[in-house]
């Protein structure tokens, strides 16, 4: 401050006036801009339970120590209890040694009743609204395996209808799964027992796997899953039927929460005609080994894709 201040003249000079107006315009523009920005961000006020710090920094499934995993399981159990009022039993079930699962489905027997579809939804805690189903039953005219001729929405008073057969399709648990190959973050992989699983806490929701699957077996949570409290199945597995979050993929996992402790999948148990057979292909005494050894005809869906499914369709009275 070496220069003496100018004595105030009382009359603002022209430049001051212009500068003042410009500054005023500038600050009003800045305020209006900030206001508009705040208004644009306002929908975020409805955001609840999106993610927590623990979830955000959670490690990849294959890199978790047993200690990490027990913490994660406790977090999941707490969350489910908070949301549904039920304390679930969540387990991290590993594949069993000497076991490789295979599914066989008898197309001659299937009557298209869709009981498997609904048993699956109940067992695996799928969202009811919008409803996510892992199994799609195709109604096909006699003599054709061309899925472009399939009716997905058949709804007659009684099944089976004359002149048609029914083909339930779910994840085929391929030996060479395109979904695993395309996933950019290893969020889905094939386990030792042949089941392709998803780490729901690692999936980024790009839906590339959904585009890659030739069997349309994968489903996306387009919004927050909605399961009525009284319908929740509390017997859960980390890679299986624990409730999913908005924005991640899910699909059939051969009911890991059941099959890895020696039980049958829910779709098999409910089937009224015994069309579904499930078991360990490495055990020569198992039913599936018998079917694949003894039946003259069994097929893999879209065999020409080279996916080599562990899901076989056969024909037998």
């Amino acid at each position: 401050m070496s220069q003496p201040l100018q004595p105030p003249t009382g009359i603002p000079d022209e430049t001051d006036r212009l500068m003042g107006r410009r500054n005023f315009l500038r600050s009003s523009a800045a305020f209006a801009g900030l206001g508009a920005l705040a208004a644009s961000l306002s929908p975020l006020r409805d955001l609840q339970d999106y993610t927590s710090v623990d979830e955000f920094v959670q490690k990849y499934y294959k890199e978790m120590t047993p200690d990490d995993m027990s913490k994660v399981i406790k977090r999941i159990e707490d969350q489910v209890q908070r949301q549904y009022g039920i304390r679930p039993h969540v387990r991290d079930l590993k594949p069993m040694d000497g076991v490789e699962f295979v599914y066989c489905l008898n197309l001659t027997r299937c009557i298209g009743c869709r009981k498997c579809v609904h048993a699956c939804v109940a067992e695996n805690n799928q969202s009811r609204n919008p409803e996510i189903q892992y199994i799609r039953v195709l109604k096909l005219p006699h003599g054709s395996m061309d899925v472009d001729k399939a009716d997905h929405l058949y709804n007659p008073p009684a099944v089976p209808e004359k002149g048609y057969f029914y083909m339930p399709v779910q994840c085929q648990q391929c030996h060479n799964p395109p979904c695993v190959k395309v996933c950019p973050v290893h969020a889905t992989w094939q386990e030792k027992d042949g089941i392709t699983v998803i780490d729901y806490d690692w999936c980024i929701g790009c839906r590339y796997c959904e585009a890659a699957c030739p069997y349309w077996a994968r489903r996306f949570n387009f919004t927050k899953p909605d399961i009525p409290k009284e319908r929740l199945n509390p017997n859960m597995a980390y890679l299986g039927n624990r409730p999913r979050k908005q924005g991640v993929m899910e699909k059939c996992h051969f009911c890991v929460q059941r099959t890895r402790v020696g039980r049958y999948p829910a779709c098999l148990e409910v089937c009224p005609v015994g069309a579904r057979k499930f078991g360990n292909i490495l055990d020569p005494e198992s039913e599936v080994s018998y079917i694949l050894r003894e039946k003259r005809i069994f097929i893999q869906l879209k065999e020409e894709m080279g996916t080599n499914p562990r899901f076989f369709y056969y024909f037998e009275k």
Partner: protein
Amino acid sequence: MIRAAKDYLTFLWRCGRIAFVGDWRYYAWMGGLTVFCLLGLHAYCIQFVHGLIVTGMSDEVSWGVYIANFTFLVGVAAAAVMMVIPVYIYDNEELHDLVIFGELLAVAAIIMCLAFVTVDLGRPDRFWHLIPGIGQLNFPRSMLSWDVIVLNGYLLLNVHICGYLLYSRYQNRKPSKWFYIPFVFIAIFWAVSIHTVTAFLYVGLGGRPFWNSSIVGPRFLASAFSAGPAIIILALQVIRRVTQYHITNKALLTLRSIVQVSMIINVFLLINEIFKEFYSGNLHVASSRYLFLGLDGFHALVPWIWTAIAFNLISMFLLILPLSRSLKWLDLACVLCIVGIWIEKGMGLVIPGFIPTPLGALIEYTPSMNETLVCLGIWAFGLLCYTIFLRMSVPILQGTLSKSNEHLPEPDSGAEPVAAPAPH
């Protein structure tokens, strides 16, 4: 060292400052774009909270206009190379000073691409799972991981080349060749790779016969190399109208011949594709049938694809005729080419791949209002970025913004030439 950093910060500060200065047309254009950006941001916040259910996508058609626009814009970004090749390989003088506008367009296009893939993610909060080192990038098996690498790499390359050349010009120094020529040549190959990798994203899916075809890659490049330079032609037309920057007719006509040849190749490949799909009559043509003719009473895309084909054909004939040496007709040909390819490479490529589903269900797709607003927001943001880049670079190239006039008082309003980009 400190002095260099200080100089660079002054440069950035002055560039940032000039982005907020212009005449009334500049303010109106930028204000309008900002409004659209904010509308898009608002729509995205709604989607972030409620999930992708607010879009028109479903388990049947699981990618929509986001990925469609992404695919188109990768092509636009890759097309910058069509200005770089004549300049750096064939020493074309006319295009020499203009090449930077193409590279800046590539930067803006990649920014839009990254925005479009981000809004398509179900869990954008988990983006870090893609970062090598801390995440689990499935490289080299997943084509999407290749795309992450090539797109970000291309962005860095172009930011480096443009930034270095502009800063050298600002300092009135001759750029050191070692510092940018190698990157220019890497960028040429890289540009081809970004669009090839994006094509492979689709081509690699054996379960989708519509995409699983070796012609998709070449068609991607042919269409990109016509739509991209067409956008650059329109951008240059705008630049030379609203600024004093000198752009010769000859430069525009050089670009015209690039668009012309690429468009002829593109139409030729289209004929190949249509012949192969329809003549053999096997069962895998359901998607093409849906796209071009409609299938079982579903035909939402039919009017779109025929519009696209008509635009491409008209544009090709205009470009072949000497008529388009007149710049008005050239502008028209470019607009038709851009719109035609946007439809064809976007909706026309992505959506039919999902219809019918691999299990034969026919579910159609229409983008929702919210989804459309998000798209408009991203386009507005991209245009905003490109306008700012031009606003900074034109005065630098003209020498009105340089180190030598650093200490002079800053111009405060529309006294300076103003740049605005082309309406894409």
